[in-house]
């Protein structure tokens, strides 16, 4: 089996490559170099939007694509962000359709639903993707999810799987939730302690490989070992949060962000104020999914343990 992995040089990409390379011929596409690449993994260092991607598909008979070359960088210009994510996804889907790929696995995120005070405690896959209503600059992340969703219906001959995992945390991953949990004196919104769901990087990697199994298709929320109050996470980590009144936190953070003193855009505060939890039972039932890491291990993984 030949599998193309976009975004292979990222943290999650490397995890998936390492889990997969003994069973399949892995070809990575990423504009970043792949540090620590196993010998049997091929890496094409190119922008996924470029012609080179066509070439990879044309020259090899690709059986499956795992698309996780999605960028989440609040510092990048909205235009670059949008172009890379949306055009990159379109390119991958286009190639998949054109060159007879049988399986497309797309990494989306449970964040597409967006935190909100109106949310039900557990959102199913049918819930509307509302994240952009309070945080407009994430609309490209919703768009790529929808692109894959549309592709699923347009190409019934291809098994398309869209995975929406909860907050991904892990020892070396540098995404917003992991970085936040690593803070020794993190902000909390005073008086708010929402339940959160976390999943270990390796469990997400396992889920993506599970999605490659013939017959799997559809949109799935993927949950980790459960739900826990945010303050319990910090208690477990031994970090001492600072309660900031919610009406001050937003203006303060937007000033800090503007002057590059903070790396979180103010809209991210919704995640520590309101619920954005998903119901992962469809995935669990259909695949017999069980995360390998316990809640404690998942939380502590951000410390590099």
């Amino acid at each position: 089996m030949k599998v193309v992995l976009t975004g292979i040089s990222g943290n999650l990409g490397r995890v998936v490559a390492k889990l997969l390379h003994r069973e399949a011929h892995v070809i990575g596409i990423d504009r970043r170099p792949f540090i620590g690449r196993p010998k049997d993994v091929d890496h094409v260092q190119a922008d996924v939007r470029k012609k080179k991607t066509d070439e990879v598909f044309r020259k090899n008979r690709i059986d499956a694509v795992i698309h996780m070359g999605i960028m989440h960088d609040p510092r990048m210009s909205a235009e670059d962000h949008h172009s890379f994510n949306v055009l990159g996804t379109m390119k991958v889907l286009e190639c998949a359709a054109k060159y007879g790929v049988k399986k497309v696995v797309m990494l989306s995120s449970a964040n597409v639903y967006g935190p909100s005070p109106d949310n039900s405690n557990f959102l199913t896959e049918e819930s509307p993707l509302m994240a952009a209503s309070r945080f407009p600059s994430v609309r490209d992340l919703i768009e790529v999810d929808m692109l894959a969703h549309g592709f699923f219906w347009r190409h019934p001959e291809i098994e398309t799987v869209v995975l929406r995992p909860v907050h991904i945390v892990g020892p070396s991953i540098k995404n917003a939730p992991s970085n936040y949990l690593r803070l020794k004196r993190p902000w909390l919104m005073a008086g708010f302690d929402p339940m959160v769901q976390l999943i270990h990087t390796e469990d997400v990697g396992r889920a993506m490989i599970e999605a490659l199994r013939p017959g799997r298709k559809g949109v799935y929320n993927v949950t980790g070992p459960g739900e826990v109050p945010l303050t319990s996470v910090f208690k477990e980590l031994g970090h001492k949060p600072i309660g900031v009144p919610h009406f001050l936190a937003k203006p303060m953070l937007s000033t800090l962000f503007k002057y590059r003193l903070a790396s979180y855009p103010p809209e991210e505060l919704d995640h520590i104020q309101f619920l954005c939890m998903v119901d992962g039972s469809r995935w669990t039932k259909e695949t017999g999914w069980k995360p390998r890491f316990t809640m404690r291990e998942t939380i502590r993984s951000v410390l590099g343990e």
Partner: protein
Amino acid sequence: MPHALSATTVTSRKRQATKGDRSRVVGSRQWLTHTARPVSGFRELVKEGLRNWTLAMAGDDLDRRLAGSRPQNEYGVDPFGFSLDYALSAIGPFLWLYKNYFRVETFGVDKVPSGRVLLISNHSGQLPFDAAMIGVAMLTQAQPPRTIRSMVEKWVPTLPWVSTFMARVGQIVGTPENCRRLLERDETILVFPEGIKGIAKLYPQRYQLQEFGMGFMRLALETNTPIVPVAVVGAEEQAPAIMNIKPLAKLVGFPVMPMTPWGVPFPLPVKYRLYFGDPLFFTGRSDDDDAELEKKVKVVKASIQTMLEQGLKERKAVFW
């Protein structure tokens, strides 16, 4: 609502559940020995004190009778954020109100069937003490003790401390999905179909049931859940509101701002009487026309109204 409830939220930091807690020996005066456990910090101390107070009032085997009755993970919460440990501390002041302030009398609590059930009640009093008293009644009077979950307004999650308090004592934002999910987990759910119109009703409208929402009936039909009508007599006089000041409500972002003659909706020491009716079972399609559902809803409404009138007739005074 915020001022009334935030008093108890000093306990918001959770005590870490250690293995020893669950397996400790239960003696007759055991609540006295609770303080022997290592406690750290002021919050923990307050929490411990409140918990002991609850157990002193409710009978010190309450926590033992409740132990294992609720699913919880290694952090002491269920997936919705309910924490039995937190709730036992938080309930203290309400239990005191139940016994000494509102002097609640409960009738027919044994009629509540086991398993999933919807408690449908009238709503009044500006602050949801009626919900709290029904909750305390189910916890302390029902055999075995039951923890109820009620559906709260969507603005509750926007309120600091209140949102956390509500989640830890088991209250959930009232979306149909949440309700369905909880019923499928065989929970006891309290619904006030009058909603905000009920709690904020003005004094002349006391004991007049406002328009009932129909969502509860759809969910009952869909999940095959029995309905127990509940009538709360007393609460409708606890904070007689004379007018609803809409501009002020808008200013502070509250849905309503009813004013009592003394301004704040501080409840008077009225006597509460809670009447639980016989369970009602409905059959039919949950996606039926509103007109069809309306008929069924009317049965529930009529049953509550009858119990209310009976209760009003039987009582001799508002305050005793």
